[in-house]
């Protein structure tokens, strides 16, 4: 017993010692921050730290390669130390409460009221000709007038900037087909490459492919496709969106815009011929009854799907998000997945007002306000866009072309380290910071991202892609899109007016509440619809869903969305007419 007490006393001693150590710790940090303040207030040309807070971002403090060469180029240019901080909603509401936030913040439109009423954003109009010249360049005229008119709490001031602006004729462009009908290339060739122009064609293709490939090498069952159930309705309605020509306005895909007509519809409540949701329900119902659909498709999440793709259990799919591992492991054979274009091809979309869900502002509480404005301005410059998409001039690119060494580095597995340290990797989210999008054409006549040239596209093809290109007579896979568009079989997104959605008000809480509830009801109705044995059963399930939705007040929400979209359209006409 005495021993036990002795132990206790020893423990006490250790505690006291540790408190001492800690005292040291906290003192030293205090001194650091004090000196930091002193420096900033006396001499602005001294190097300061600028923090940028963004929701769901790769935090620079844990990123392995930070600071990358690109970071250093930015830091040298502005004479700052740059830190990118990851935020989530909880952290954001805490920092909004305390006012102690990053020098530059990026928030979604749902926070505009918090930021402006709390007076957290610097009015950039005070710096038009001094620190913020890039922000006010001609390129951003449209964006700025939208920000001033619809994102300023009716004060007509410029508080926010957005990333990803793409003007007329600068529409998105990719080397491969990103979305459409996924097929295993070897099997598709084996069945004679029948053309796919509709969902029914695709089911036929999958059926034939399954006959050729009934189980994997390890004896696992093979299915046509599965589903990810952790991204709202996306997985269950995306194919229909591509087929009928819509893009989604909200994350749950409940409201869509027709890319050719710029009309908003409610996915579930629209007439059946117009609705991607009902198109897809019939499609998956048919697929289910053919025995093609993975029976786990209602419980899978993205990660499970990824696992099954890696094991080769799927023949098709709707996008490129989950089969990456399989393709990496089969890069040298023609067993990889490729995507064939659908009616609407995911290409050519402009983004006149930038990405409306990311609003950057300079914090009025920033201790280095001038430097922060300068930094945000730099994010709005052509120099920055070229830097983060194409690298350092003279080292990675010159005369508007990428250097061969840089192109080779990207796809060379032995140079992973080097590639990471450079910082061009698309997986670090620089593109959601740059105000100018990848395919924008800069003053030197080339795109911001020099990767988007035929030459580069052609230089980094996998075995399967090469095979596909030679079969179809293409230079690179996504050329098939242009071909189909020319032939009139497909259409791209160049007609969509991105300003309409950019100018929409964000939904008030009672509408959001209805929408959340409705999404839940729709999601839960999917198994019943897909597994319906015949048409009567399908229609019964459909009637039940529609009456449930009516009871959940879906009409109120639909009405709000329709009116808001109309209002946004009129507002845009006013602003652009000015």
């Amino acid at each position, binding site marked *: *017993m005495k021993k*036990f*007490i002795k132990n*206790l006393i020893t423990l006490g001693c*250790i*505690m006291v010692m*540790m*408190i001492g*150590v*800690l005292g040291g*710790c*906290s003192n*030293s*940090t205090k001194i650091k921050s004090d000196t930091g303040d002193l420096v900033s207030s006396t001499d602005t040309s001294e190097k300061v730290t600028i923090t940028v807070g963004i929701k*769901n*971002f*790769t*935090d620079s*403090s*844990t*990123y*392995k390669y930070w600071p990358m060469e690109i970071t250093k180029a930015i830091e040298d240019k502005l004479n700052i130390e740059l830190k990118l901080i*990851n935020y989530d909603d*909880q*952290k954001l*509401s*805490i920092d909004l*409460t*305390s006012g*102690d936030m990053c020098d530059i913040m990026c928030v979604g439109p749902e926070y505009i009221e918090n930021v402006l009423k709390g007076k957290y954003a610097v009015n950039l109009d005070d710096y038009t000709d001094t620190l913020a010249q890039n922000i006010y360049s001609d390129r951003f005229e449209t964006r700025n007038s939208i920000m001033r008119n619809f994102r300023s709490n009716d004060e007509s001031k410029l508080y926010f900037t957005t990333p990803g602006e793409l003007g007329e004729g600068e529409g998105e462009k*990719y*080397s*491969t087909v990103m979305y459409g009908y996924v097929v295993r290339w070897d099997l598709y060739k084996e069945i004679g490459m029948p053309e796919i122009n509709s969902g029914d064609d695709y089911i036929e293709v999958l059926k034939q492919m399954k006959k050729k490939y009934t189980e994997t090498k*390890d004896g696992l069952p093979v299915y046509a496709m599965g589903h990810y159930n952790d991204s709202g309705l996306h997985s269950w309605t995306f194919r229909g969106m591509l087929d009928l020509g819509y893009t989604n306005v909200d994350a749950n895909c409940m409201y869509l815009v027709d890319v050719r007509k710029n009309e908003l519809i409610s996915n579930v409540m629209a007439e059946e011929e117009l609705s991607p949701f009902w198109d897809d329900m019939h499609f998956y119902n048919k697929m289910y009854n053919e025995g093609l659909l993975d029976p786990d498709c209602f419980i899978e999440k993205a*990660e499970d799907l990824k*696992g099954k793709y*890696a*094991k*080769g259990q799927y023949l098709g799919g709707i996008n490129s*998000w989950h089969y*990456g*591992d399989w393709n*990496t492991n089969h890069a040298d054979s023609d067993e990889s997945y490729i995507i064939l274009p659908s009616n609407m091809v995911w290409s050519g979309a402009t983004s006149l007002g930038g990405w409306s869900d990311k609003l950057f502002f300079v914090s009025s509480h920033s201790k280095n306000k001038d430097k922060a404005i300068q930094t945000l301005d730099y994010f709005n410059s052509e120099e920055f866009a070229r830097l983060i998409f194409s690298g350092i001039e003279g080292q990675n690119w010159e005369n508007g072309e990428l250097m061969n060494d840089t192109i080779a580095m*990207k*796809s060379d*597995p032995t140079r*992973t380290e080097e*590639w*990471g340290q450079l910082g061009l*990797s*698309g*997986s*670090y*989210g620089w*593109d959601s910071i740059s105000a100018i999008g*990848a395919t924008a054409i800069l003053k030197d006549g080339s795109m911001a*991202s020099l*990767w*988007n040239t035929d030459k580069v596209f052609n230089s*980094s093809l996998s075995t399967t892609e090469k095979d596909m290109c030679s079969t179809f007579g293409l230079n690179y896979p996504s050329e098939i899109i242009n071909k189909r568009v020319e032939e009139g079989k497909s259409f791209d997104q160049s007609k969509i007016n991105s300003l309409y959605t950019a100018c929409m008000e964000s939904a008030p809480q009672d509408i959001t509440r209805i929408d959340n509830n409705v999404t839940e009801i729709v999601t839960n109705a999917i198994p019943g619809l897909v597994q319906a044995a015949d048409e009567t059963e399908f229609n019964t399930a459909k009637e039940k869903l529609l009456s449930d939705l009516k009871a959940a007040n879906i009409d109120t929400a639909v009405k709000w969305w329709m009116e808001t979209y109309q209002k946004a359209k009129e507002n845009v006409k006013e602003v652009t007419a000015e």
Partner: protein
Amino acid sequence: MYKRKEKSSRIIFQIFNYILLIGFTLICVYPFWTMIIYTVSDPSIADIKTPVLFPEGFTLFNYKEILGLKGFFHSLFISILRTVLGTSVTVFTSAILGYLFTKEEMPCRKFLYRIVVLTMYINGGLIPTFILIRSYGLLNSFWVYILPMAVSAYYVILIKTFVEQLPKELEEVAIIDGAGYFKVFTNVIIPLSKPIIATIAVFAAVSHWNSWFDNYIYTSKNEQIQTLQYLLYQYLNQAQQMAEQVKYSHGAISSAAASISTKGVRMTITVLAFLPIFIVYPFMQRFFTKGIMLGAVKG
């Protein structure tokens, strides 16, 4: 005759008991084992052929990545410090408070005890708590790890219940000898309550070791006192972000991004989270093995 019957049924019971408990333990250990072998398997093989008994290929990539995180050893030190200090404080405060609530002569005892119990159900919310912590000047201070968790109702309740079960004689003897409450607490109650103190020490150590939320909300701007769990949380977050980014990234997926698998990171972190219990718990178990003998304490 009676004795032998008792003996044979006891043997049957023992066999059954061993099978049951060892079986259950295997169900507990096996998933953990699959996680360990997954984290040391070569990801390119493990994704195709899930390892079942032994690793498929071998790599320490996951662990090297974590050991190579910036500030790993400093935050490990902070975590250990926090765990040792926080556990000591929590155990001491909860033990003494638990003991005091067993004293029936304590004025307002029932009322105070109920106030403590209710803290298990009451919650002011994130933002008000943050505002208070800031007004106490605890923002970005190490003490915000220790003080809010210093008194835990659950531990107080456990101690009180345990102490009430103890035989009263020893305490009475000590009081007759002229010992005050504090002396009775240190000389009689603590030695007798070793099992429950060891238990709450394990509980408190684990919760200190694994908590990152307070670091995230209150002290994320002071890198000097970053804890290991917060560092790991950020690392996991980063892996998720990058996996997410790959979806939208333009053109081909770079090999650097592909090598980070969210599943691998998550499992590695889980293996690390179990480490302290693996170290602390067997050590604490020696306070569990022997039952109390009143005689032994008297001596």
